[in-house]
Each structure stands twice: as structure tokens, then as C-alpha cells.
């Protein structure tokens, strides 16, 4: 604790900090690169859609001595389609047959039972009609659309439209990356994946919203001071909530990691694995985007406002004047020193309730 705790303290006071906003172009670039890769992968390779989207049958036998080849032959001959058979860790066989007619599945099951010498009622079957996946996908798209509209409205009301847009961009970014990774690696896309993907929606925004909350707090009455530009305050907001962001992400990832471990390691395949895999990827992307994409984007949008432009001008002029006066090289660097010496007055700058400049309010970026 102590190390991270004191790091938290230093981040909090602005003693240390990474200039997220200043280096935003790099991160934008990286994100654009990843996104392009994802889109290309999606366009070229496409997604490896699971049986639920193509229609077909998956049979899972209890632990059996039958070999994969045996099962494959039996299933292929019974169905007339090529069967894909996997032996799972616990000795069970997973037999997957795509595009098989639902009405034939009972016959195939009977055949398998006979050939593999397992009682028919011990075989698990998952039969999916050809239009089921389409239905799921359509509903997922609808859900995605509805959610995005609602969230943009909510954020525009709760914060402001610029933040809503930035959050939306971050959200699309996260989903694109996750889907892209699925296309690149070739993980199978199942309804579980879709569930995980849709859950990312909430999570990704959860993180973003917390940073925005701090940003909103920090920039209250920003025009009434001439010390920091919007971007600088935004940067401090990110740094100030960094410890919380890290903690949140770690705490969210730990249970998912547990799921992934059990789902992948013990059960071999299935719902647990699918949900947790897409969640894992999406959560990581979400944590990244709320820090590196969403907030810098807000700052960018905000700096275009005439008011903010004017503010920036004034601040730069003031700093130039101070530098000219040769007082103590009042540039970026020393403003941080300044903060160390006197953190409390910083809040006055942010101008909560027009306190006198020596007041002791909050430093920007303090909320987490």
C-alpha cells in the first residue's frame, strides 16, 4: 500500500504526473492505428462465428474412452456434414456440427450414443436454428444503439455535450478494439461473447464517467482565473483519479480473471469462458480509453471554444509576462513546484464560489 499510496498522494498533489493531454497526439495515433488494424482484420479475416450464429448442433458427451477420430467419423456419417470434435480436459468430447438440420439432430444423437457407447440421455445437446444467431445479433445491435443514444443524452445533461461525444468515441473505440482482437486471434464469437461485449458498454463508461466527474468539478469557474488552461486542469483530473482508475480496473479484472481461469482452464469452453474473455479484453480497452482518449478529446473540443481560447491566450500572456519579469521562470515546470508548496490555494484558482484567491478549496482533479 505504502508505495502506491504515497504515489497516490504525489499524484494527488501534482508532484508527479504524466502529461496525458500534452502527449495526446501520440495516443490518438496509437488508437487510430489499433482501430485501423481492427477494422482491417475484421474486413479481411472476419469473425469466427460460433455455432449459435450459423445454426447447427453441439453435442457434449460425458467422459468417454472413445477417441476424437471415432467421434468425428460417427458424427460426420450421421449428419452428412463435417463434424469438429474436441477432447476437453475432463475427458468429455465436444462434437460440433454446423448447418445441420434441427430435425435430424435426434437421429444424430442416437447414432452417436450407439457408436460411442454412451447412453443417449447422458449426451448434452445444444441445437440452434439458422436464424437464432441473426436474432441475437440484431437484438444486440438494437441494444447497442438504444444504449448509446440514452447515454449520450444522459451525459449531455449530466455533464455537457462535448463529454458525451468524447465518451461515445471512447465507447466505440473500446468495442472496435475488442471485436478487432476477436477477428485477429480468431476466438469464436458466441452469445456469451455478445453478452460480454454489451457489458463493456457499462464498464467502459463507468470509468470515463468518474474521470469526467472530476474534470467537471475541477473546471468549475475556470474562466475566472488566469492560471491554468482547460487542458492543464484536465490533465490533473486524470492524474488525480489515476490511482482510483488503476484500482477499479484491477478490482474489476480480478473476478473476470477468475472466471476466465475457471472457464478456460477447467470447463474448456462455454459460456463462462466466452463472457469473461470479451470482458477481459474490453475492460482493459475501457480503462485505457477513458484515460488516453476520452479526456484528451474533451480537452481538445473544449479548447476550441472562444472563451477557452481567450483564456488560454490570457494565461500564456501572463506567463510570458512573468517570465519576462524574470521572477521565477513561471512556466509549466514551476507551476508544479508552486503546487507542492501551496496546494490549498490552487482551489481558489479553480474558483469555487469565487473565494478570494487565497481561499482553500479544492485542487482541481481531486475528486475521484
Amino acid at each position: 500500500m505504502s508505495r502506491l499510496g504515497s504515489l497516490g498522494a504525489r499524484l494527488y498533489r501534482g508532484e508527479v504526473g504524466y502529461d496525458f493531454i500534452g502527449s495526446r497526439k501520440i495516443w490518438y495515433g496509437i488508437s487510430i492505428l489499433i482501430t485501423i488494424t481492427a477494422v482491417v482484420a475484421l474486413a479481411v479475416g472476419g469473425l469466427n462465428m460460433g455455432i449459435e450464429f450459423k445454426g447447427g448442433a453441439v453435442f457434449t458427451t460425458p467422459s468417454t474412452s472413445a477417441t476424437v477420430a471415432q467421434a468425428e467419423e460417427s458424427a460426420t456419417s450421421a449428419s452428412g456434414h463435417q463434424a469438429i470434435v474436441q477432447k476437453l480436459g475432463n475427458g468429455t468430447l465436444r462434437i460440433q456440427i454446423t448447418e445441420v438440420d434441427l430435425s435430424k439432430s435426434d437421429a444424430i444423437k442416437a447414432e452417436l450414443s450407439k457408436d460411442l457407447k454412451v447412453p443417449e440421455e447422458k449426451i448434452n445437446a445444444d441445437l440452434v436454428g439458422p436464424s437464432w444467431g441473426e436474432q441475437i445479433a440484431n437484438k444486440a445491435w438494437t441494444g447497442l444503439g438504444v444504449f448509446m443514444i440514452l447515454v449520450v443524452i444522459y451525459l449531455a445533461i449530466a455533464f455537457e455535450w462535448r463529454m458525451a461525444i468524447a465518451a461515445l468515441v471512447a465507447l466505440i473505440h473500446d468495442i472496435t478494439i475488442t471485436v478487432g482482437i476477436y477477428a485477429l486471434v480468431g476466438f469464436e464469437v458466441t452469445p456469451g461473447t455478445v453478452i460480454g461485449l454489451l457489458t463493456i458498454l457499462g464498464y467502459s463508461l463507468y470509468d470515463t464517467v468518474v474521470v469526467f466527474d472530476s474534470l467537471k468539478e475541477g473546471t468549475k469557474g475556470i474562466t475566472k482565473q488566469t492560471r491554468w488552461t482547460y487542458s492543464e486542469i484536465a490533465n490533473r483530473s486524470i492524474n488525480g483519479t489515476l490511482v482510483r482508475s488503476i484500482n477499479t480496473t484491477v478490482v474489476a479484472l480480478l473476478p473476470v480473471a477468475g472466471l476466465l481461469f475457471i472457464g478456460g482452464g477447467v470447463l474448456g469452453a462455454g459460456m463462462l469462458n466466452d463472457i469473461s474473455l470479451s470482458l477481459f479484453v474490453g475492460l482493459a480497452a475501457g480503462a485505457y480509453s477513458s484515460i488516453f482518449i476520452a479526456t484528451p478529446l474533451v480537452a481538445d473540443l473544449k479548447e476550441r471554444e472562444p472563451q477557452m481560447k481567450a483564456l488560454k491566450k490570457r494565461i500564456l500572456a501572463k506567463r510570458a509576462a512573468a517570465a519576462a519579469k524574470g521572477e521565477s521562470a513561471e512556466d509549466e515546470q514551476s507551476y508544479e513546484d508552486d503546487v507542492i508548496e501551496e496546494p490549498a490555494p490552487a482551489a481558489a484558482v479553480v474558483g469555487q464560489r469565487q473565494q478570494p484567491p487565497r481561499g482553500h478549496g479544492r485542487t482541481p482533479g481531486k475528486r475521484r
Partner: protein
Amino acid sequence: MAAPKKGRGPSGGQGRPGRALALILIAMVALTGGMFLSGHTTPRLGIDLAGGTSITLKAKSQPGKPDAINQTNMDTAVSIIERRVNGLGVSEAEVQTQGRDNIIVNIPKGTNSKQAREQVGTTAQLYFRPVLAVTEGKATPTGTASPSASGSPKPSASPSSKETASGSKATPSASATTQGRAVTGALTKDTSPSPSASGTPKASASPSASVDPATAELQKKFAELDCSTKAGRAKAGANVKPTDTTVACSSEGDAKYVLGPAEVSGTDVGSAKAAVDQQRGMWIVQMDFTDKGSKKFQKITSKLSTQQSPMNQFAIALDGEVVSAPQVNETLSGSAEISGSFTQQSAQDLANVLSYGALPLSFREDTVTTVTAALGGEQLQAGLIAGAIGLALVVIYLVAYYRGLALIALLSLAASGILTYTLMSLLGPAIGFALNLPAVCGAIVAIGITADSFIVYFERIRDEIREGRTLRPAVERAWPRARRTILVSDFVSFLAAAVLFIVTVGKVQGFAFTLGLTTLLDVVVVFLFTKPVMTLMARTKFFSSGHPWSGLDPKRLGAKPPLRRSRRVNAPTDPKEA
């Protein structure tokens, strides 16, 4: 935005930690008590965890009838499927609509998917069959039946032939009586070869067939047929081919029939509707036949109208049960009326059955999932282990990072866990909530969301301490801002869950439901538990003195020495901050 505006300021939330705690403790005790009282101490498990068969049906849209998929039709379909499925003899099969056009059929423990699928059946199973004999609905004690009972031992049966069919002038006539010779007469028509029926004297029962030893087997079945139980009724109609002579029960169970081969099927009916007979002021059902059906119906009625009661009746058999058995008094064709002691509801039900066949809509199987109990148990176990691992990791992290504060986090997680578990258990019987694998996943994922609220609050408190405040004011000042952050982020999370729940089907819904539920509980727990406990803990020496293990040691947190406290006088009670 989402934060309530009340209770701001350091003194706001401090006053009554006991009251909030008492409230949530009462809630927990009440829920736990309710859980034990109701006898549902574990959440109801979904098919994928308990084993069983789950079938998803999707209503097919019919060209020309865009409004056919509506709530009424879906409900009718659900009740019909429910009746069929429960006839399988397995308990607690559940049928429910989901979304606009899906029906989910869950058959716990039943892994004979073939039988289940046949039973759920997507095709009409409605037939018009001539009545050959009818008697009281009970099973006839086989021991007492004498082989020579050629007469009619139970002439008293007055079965449910309440309705009478006729062209225009329907005659509500007296009910049929049992006639032994009815069976024998009818059975002579039976084409199925069945020699040596006389060799089974025990079997021949009330409507005995001493004249013609036709189908002893049928007689036996008829004698043993017990229409007083649901399962018995369903069994009678199971696996009967339309071309067979068969036995059947009335749907009320008060009569049993021997029925001839089906002469007209449900598809021959063009349309049917319930109407009020103006002259007699009673509910009747009017039906029109298709051209083909009209000819068939003409044939059967001309034959039946010459017969004596009860053989002048035809039975409308739906899924093996006789829903109505009107008498025919004349040859009919084209259209017919069925009259009798209908209520509006029963007339409409019958009209529905007649016009849509068995189901008011045609359905398509979208998924059929069969999970053996073994696999279900395995998955449940895996889910629980995954949850335990996830929880343990979170606990370790929290303890390592927050030390003493982690105790409060753990207590809160426990409170949240108790509330979640009891609610899930109670929601099973209340709204049919079943815990499936995705729901378990949702609960595990929710550990993160819940823990995050504590992190938000703890970090705020630490910031206040870094400002140089002592713990008690820090706890109070940190709360209003943490509260707002928690509410805003939980709102977004809940929004995602709600949208997911509304637009999706099946497994995804279970996940969304758990996620939404736990998000709500998170808010409840943080407000009514974490915050009050934090306030109380701040009064203990361990925490307030900033013990190194409390997680709130000002030195470790790098707090400002409180030397500027005197200058602070004008600021701290700023309401906007708090």
C-alpha cells in the same frame, strides 16, 4: 447530476449512522427470514445448472396477418404448450414468453429432448373424431369387471357432451349415456387386427365387448383410463396416430371416450369465432370449413346423424383431449354452430382452438438445449469456484492496499452478498427468476462494480486526509462527492443492464438481470451500510488515530501537517464542495 441535493455539508450525513444501519439490518433479517419462511433457501437454478431441456420457439410471422403476433395469441400458445409439456409427466416444466415473439420452454431434469420436442410440437394436433363410446371419467376397477359383462354396468355416466352441433337449429339435447354396444359396434369397424381378445378376461371392463372380441387391448386401455388426474388425461392422448381408434378423456376429466379414426383435422377448419346466439341469448361457436373440409365434414355428419346416441356425437380432440363432443342431428356442410353451456371465455377458447389448430401461431424451434444433470452440476460448481477465486483475489487486493479499510469493504461486500442471495432466492418463486450460468457470471462481474464504489469513497477520504483533515471530518466531507460519483457511474451501469434486459432474450436476460439487481443493491449498500459503518469506525481509536494498519495513516498517505488549519476557517463548510 444524479446526486440528491439534500444532506450536504459535513454535518449532513453524520447524524444518524445507527438509523441507516438499523434499516439495512432489518431489511437483511426480513429477507433472510422471508427466505426461510417461504422454504426457498436456494435460488432456483436454470436449466443449464440443474440439467434439463430448454427449447426456444419463435413465432413465425404470417403473410397477410401482420398483427397475428400479439400478446393474446402468445398467451394462448403458452397455455397450450404448457398443457402439452406438463403431460410429459415431469414436474414444474415452465413455459413463458420472452420478448415479443419468443416462447421459452424449460423442462427441468427432462433430458429426453426428442420426446419433449414432439410434445411441444409446432404443428396442429386437432382432430374431429367420431365418438364410439363414452363413460364416466374414472378408471374401472379391473378386478370387479366380469368377462361376461355384456351389458352396460355404468349406465349412469352423463359425460361432458354439453354441446350440441347443428346447422342452424341446434338442439341442446340430453347427455349421452353409456352404451356397451356402442363400443362393440364401433370396434367392428376397426381395421386393426386383434385376435384373441377374449383371452384376456380381466381386461374387459364396463363397456364390454363380448359380442365381437375386437380390440381387447383398447378395452383394457379404456377400462384403465383414469381421467381424474392431469397426467392420466395427458397419457391417454400421447402418441396416438390420427388413423387409430383410440381412447381419450374430456379436458375436464369427467368423461372418457372411445374415439374412431380422425375424419376431419384441424387444418380443415377455415375459421371459427365465438358469437352470441341472438334468439337464445347464449354463447355459441361458429365455424366455417375449407372446401375440402366441408366435404369431409358433410360425410361424417351424414353418417353420424343416423346413429344413435352416443354415436351421433363427434369429439373435437385437441392434443388427445376431448374439448367438446357435440351431437349431430343432421347432415352438415360448409359451416356449423356448436352450442352448449358456453361462457364467453370457453366459447372463445374453443373458437381459438378450432381456427388456429392447436396453436394460435405457428412456431419455429430456434434453440434446443439439453443439459444433463451432471454437466449442470459441473457448471454450477465451476461458476462457484470462479466466483470464490474472483472474490478471494479482490479481497487480497483490498487488504493489501487498504489494510484496515478493507474490513469495511469486506463487511459491505458481505452485506451486498446476503442481500443478493436472499433476493435471488425469493425472486425465484416470485417472478420466476432462475439462476443460470450467465447470471452467475453477472454476479461475479458485479463484485468489481460493488468494490469500486468503496474504492471511490476510500480514495476521497484519503484525499481529505491528505488535505490535513482528521478522520472524522474527512469521512463526512468525502461522502457527498463520493456519493455523486457513485450515483452517476452506477446509473450508467444500470442503464446498460436495463437496455440489455429489455432488448434481449434468454440467457442474456439472466445476465442483465443480475447485473441490474446488483448495481441497485450496490447503491443501497453504500448508502445504508458502508457510509454509516465508516462514520462509526471513524470514532474508533484504531482508525481515527491513523494506525499504520488502518489504511488511513496520515504519514503514509503523505498528508499535509495540519499546521495550516487555522487558516482554513473560512473554507471548510463550503456547501458546493460538500
